[in-house]
């Protein structure tokens, strides 16, 4: 009987392993190809590459439109990260600790941009901005759109961190004489910090990568990196695009690694 179970289970385990590997290959192969293509010495975006060179990186870093877009994307992503972290954490605190009536409505409102197709949010915002006269002349509208989209990530990860805090900890701090602000600063915040960091890093990556919102809400003359890339690919088909993608990939990877280091180290302490 036991042997039979083993025989049945082993093929299952083997099959499962094979599927997992296949999925990974499917997901990671395009990335690997992009990275390899960016090192191509030839004139066109082809695979396999014809010789190795860093010339397309040079072309990326010396291209004014790409550098402007890159800087703008970094700036927008950093701003989104900070705003989403602050707003998302506050919203999560209010939702978990204080909200009584309308609690679910609040949750739905914060999460709605995550549930709706991005393009719908973008169109809605576009109409709204023109209605109220904000328009798309400045970057304010674009920035608000990015915060709106990235907010749910911070909200969700901070909520789950808050739910995991033992409520007696805060009571213990109060009984020791700490007022509510001190309790928050000395107890709650350090305990939800991993959640805030994770959420903030997500916000950065998502915002850096956001397409539809940026496409519709960007002003004339300014553009973010994904859109610049898209524009570029319409006319040129050289490996600069691959170099840009690779830089983005490396940056995303760095953010993930930083998060893992920060939060990972903290996680060991708890």
């Amino acid at each position, binding site marked *: 009987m036991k042997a039979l179970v083993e025989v049945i289970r082993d093929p299952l385990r083997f099959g499962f392993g094979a599927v997992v590997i296949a999925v990974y290959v499917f997901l990671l192969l395009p990335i690997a190809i992009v990275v390899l293509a960016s090192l191509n010495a030839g004139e066109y975006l082809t695979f396999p590459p014809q010789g190795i060179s860093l010339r397309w990186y040079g072309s990326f870093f010396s291209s004014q439109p790409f550098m402007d877009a890159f800087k703008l994307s970094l700036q927008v992503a950093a701003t989104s990260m900070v705003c989403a972290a602050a707003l998302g954490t506050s919203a999560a605190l209010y939702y978990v600790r204080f909200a009584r009536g309308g609690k679910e409505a609040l949750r739905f409102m914060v999460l709605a941009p995550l549930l709706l197709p991005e393009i719908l949010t973008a169109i809605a915002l576009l109409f709204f901005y023109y209605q109220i006269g904000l328009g798309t002349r400045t970057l304010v509208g674009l920035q608000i759109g990015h915060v709106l989209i990235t907010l749910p990530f911070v909200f969700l990860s901070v909520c789950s961190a808050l739910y995991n805090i033992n409520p007696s900890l805060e*009571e213990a701090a109060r*009984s*020791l*004489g700490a007022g509510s602000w001190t309790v928050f600063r000395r107890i709650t915040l350090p305990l939800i910090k991993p959640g805030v960091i994770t959420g903030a890093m997500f916000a950065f990556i998502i915002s850096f990568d956001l397409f539809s919102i940026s496409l519709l809400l960007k002003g004339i003359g300014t553009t973010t990196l994904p859109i610049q890339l898209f524009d570029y690919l319409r006319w040129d088909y050289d490996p600069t695009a691959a170099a840009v993608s690779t830089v983005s990939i490396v940056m995303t990877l760095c953010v993930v690694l930083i998060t893992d280091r920060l939060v990972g180290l903290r996680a060991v*302490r708890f």
Partner: protein
Amino acid sequence: MTRLSISGLAKRFDKVAVLKGFDLEIANGELISLLGPSGCGKTTTLRCIAGFEQPSSGRIEFDGADVVRLPAEKRDIGMVFQNYALFPHMTVAENLAFGLEMRKVAKPEIERRTAEVLKLVQLSDLGGRYPRQLSGGQQQRVALARALVIEPKLLLLDEPLANLDAKLREEMRFFIRSLQRRVGITTVYVTHDQAEAMVISDRIVVMFGGEIAQIGSAGDVYDRPASRQVASFIGLSNFIDGTVDGMDGEYCNVDTRLGRMRCRAGGAPAKGTAASILARPEVIVLSSTEPQDVNRARATVAERYFLGNMIDYRLDCGDGVVMQTQQPPHKVFEVGASVWFAIPAGQTWLLAR
């Protein structure tokens, strides 16, 4: 050092009355335990005293000053939680220092007092550890130290030993008791373990359904329980139902199905009152020959269990009356044997039925 007095304390959660308005006076330096079954309102009482719950009505006074309007952080209370609630991101020393920092105590003074209290709970070497690096018993003592280091007016403990294993629990009882004596702090101790309450407290407050059923020493609540409910909650008990026939000196004569019995009584119940006699299993004496005692009857041994230090018997007294008794292990009676049992009148107690 503080005198705590509670009057008319009531608490409702959405219309459900959890505390039904009781009074309680706790003297300076006294340790009282709140003892009662699950859900009787012990934790709620403690949380009202600590300021984590707002009473629906009633007064809570520290040395005569009403604190009901005072937030928890202003009440100057040391509290030990069932799950210890040590701050996981702080070392033991930082945990202890927290309350002192809130009181703006100077750094050197904080270090001195922290070290002193750590010594008191015998954890001097562990100041640099994080809570997760400590055993359950050590965490327990850190929680105690953290509550004591601020030299609070009042120490509140909510089932502080519930998460420890039986042996450690026993040790910690005595530890907490002797520590409390040395520090001399007024203490409220919540537990649902009667043995713990008996060992640790000056007085026990027995609670049922949000009300106080009895306040008294361990001897009072065990030997002279206020009601049948208290008697059956604390320790094992046999109840022999009967009718009061009148007083005979300080004893009361009661007619029962086992015959007429003499019994200690708190007051002087009127003739004809329906009552129950409380006989604890360990006071009953079994013998194979007829005893001299007034309260005696015949029975058959129905069941027998070895408990190690005792043998537990179930006696069939006929007429549907079953008694439980515990005898020293050197007296052995076989199942099915016909025996005599005696209940010394001085160790019985009459309860209203």
